[in-house]
């Protein structure tokens, strides 16, 4: 049996008995459904919540019924402008030919009530105009001389769902690969130093490169397990909670193999880097301080899709590790297509990152000060 395989099996056995790593993977699986449930509840509450309009003056006939049907409750007040600051969501003064609206844009409830009021008034105006024309024997169609007919090239609901997934999935994939393997990486490096087992391990005839290979393979396995747990639970959660358009989520056939391939490349790189950083640390706790910045460094590229959803980069951007994986996954999820050139550049970039990380880890793992500095 090869030394790498022996080390790999032993590391996994220890991980399966390590409460810290199992908790990390368990949290990874639980966190996504919890976040999605919270988003779902807030979103449902916002959609169905009744907002209050404080008004004065005479309400136009029939408008009160429309407002109530849109969950806008009417409440008479003496001063609508003053009431709109705190007492109610909107203040409205009904005048004979005009409606004055007062609202505080810094309040989310006021913004939603404003949108609802504008929609209701638009419908009311259209209905009143059409009724007036019909009573004079004129076709109400003259009010809409140009009719817009939309022809979406893909399902708008599916597009919205894909946009959600194109951000959420790479984000979860990358963060879970990174954080899922943290504990195992530190236990396997700084932990060995702290427990004073490293010397025993290095005293065996096994070549250090094989020992390192076994350790990195074990950490990669744990990272991927955490990512699979998180993504699996995300899809299960999406079938159970209501998120509007996001409920129509399904992963395109093109995205699945791309995701698996990129996850593997990222996991190997992350495992090597965290193991290398772990070997610099003398204790598990010190190792945590070293690897934590890695989380923030990697989370920035993963977040770029959130801030620039239509970011269309040149091929050079696909050389940047992590960002390239996020972009390729976005394209595969949103467009259900693969840009093979971009995927090739991304793969080369991630392979090079993995190789460099591996060399750095090997260099650090074989240096003399690993044992002489305590």
């Amino acid at each position, binding site marked *: *049996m090869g*030394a790498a395989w*022996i*080390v790999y099996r*032993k590391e996994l*056995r*220890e991980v399966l*008995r*390590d409460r810290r790593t199992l908790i990390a993977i368990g949290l990874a699986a639980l966190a996504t459904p919890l976040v999605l449930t919270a988003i779902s509840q807030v979103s449902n509450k916002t959609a169905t919540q009744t907002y209050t309009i404080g008004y004065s003056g005479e309400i136009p006939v029939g408008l009160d019924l429309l407002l109530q049907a849109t969950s806008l409750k009417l409440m008479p007040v003496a001063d609508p402008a003053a009431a709109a600051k705190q007492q109610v969501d909107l203040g409205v003064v009904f005048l004979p030919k005009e409606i004055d609206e007062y609202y505080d844009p810094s309040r989310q409830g006021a913004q939603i009530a404003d949108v609802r009021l504008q929609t209701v008034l638009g419908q009311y105006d259209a209905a009143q105009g059409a009724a007036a024309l019909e009573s004079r024997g004129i076709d109400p169609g003259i009010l809409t001389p140009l009719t817009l007919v939309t022809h979406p090239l893909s399902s708008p609901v599916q597009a919205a769902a894909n946009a959600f997934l194109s951000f959420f999935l790479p984000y979860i994939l990358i963060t879970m690969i990174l954080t899922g393997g943290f504990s195992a990486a530190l236990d396997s490096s700084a932990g060995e130093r702290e*427990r*004073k*087992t*490293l*010397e*025993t*391990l*290095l*005293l*065996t*005839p*096994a*070549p250090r490169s094989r020992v390192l290979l076994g350790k990195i393979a074990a950490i990669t396995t744990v990272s991927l397990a955490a990512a699979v747990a998180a993504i699996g639970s995300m899809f299960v959660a999406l079938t159970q909670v209501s998120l509007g358009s996001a409920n129509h989520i399904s992963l395109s056939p093109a995205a699945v193999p791309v995701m698996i391939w990129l996850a593997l490349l990222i996991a190997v790189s992350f495992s090597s880097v965290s193991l290398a950083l772990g070997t610099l640390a003398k204790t598990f706790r010190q190792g945590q301080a070293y690897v934590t910045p890695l989380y923030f460094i990697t989370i920035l590229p993963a977040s770029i899709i959130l801030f620039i959803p239509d970011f269309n980069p040149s091929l050079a951007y696909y050389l940047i590790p992590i960002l390239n994986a996020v972009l390729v996954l976005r394209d595969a999820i949103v467009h259900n297509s693969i840009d093979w050139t971009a995927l090739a550049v991304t793969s080369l970039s991630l392979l090079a990152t993995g190789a460099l990380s591996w060399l750095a880890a090997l260099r650090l793992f074989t240096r*003399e000060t690993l*044992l*002489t500095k305590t």
Partner: protein
Amino acid sequence: MSPAAVTVERLEKTLGANKVLRGISFEARAGEIFGLLGPNGAGKTTTLRIICTLLSPDAGTVEVLGFGTLTTPEQVRRRLGVVTADIGVYPRLSARENIEYVAMLCGLAGAELARKVDGVIERFDMGSFAKQRAESLSSGQKQKVAIARAIVHDPDVLMFDEPTSNLDVLASKEVREFMVEAKGRGKCVIFSTHVMHDAERLCDRVTIIHHGLVVAYGSVDEVRGEQRDLEASFLALVERT
């Protein structure tokens, strides 16, 4: 006279700004307990770490049973068993799994692996706690695990670096008895210690290192010389240098 199992020649080593070894030479033979003596910081552990290939010398050579530490480090490690004062065991593995892990990395497999692991468990009377996780073992039990895994591949050279410094009287006695037993089986035992009483009782030959230099080398009787015991001789040598 037995042939040299370990040959150390003009060893030099600097760690950081500290020149730890300044030309150490000695030979340790099969079938003897060879004492590597000296005060704390004399360079004993550095010497042992170079012999077992964990460190590289700046100058000089080490051969273990004819294999050079720089040219064939894996062959050297295959022939060595090392026990240190720091009893590092994998806490989430059982005592048996700790031993098996090292044995497999030393190349044992299948029936031979099981036989040798069973053998050391029996030798050190570890049957009652072999399946217990190492995190729940006492210091003495952990030291037994440490010795068992160091010898499970039946190496010809055994090195003990201050092996009893963290142990109680009973556990220390067992370690000393094992060293004598290993010598009886023709093994070369290198015993590094600053406890002169232990060295005098156990060792056939010794070398005393001070400030990275060999200040005495020979049989216990030769090194003791006119002094009443090895400790007095050691103090006289150290004070002189």
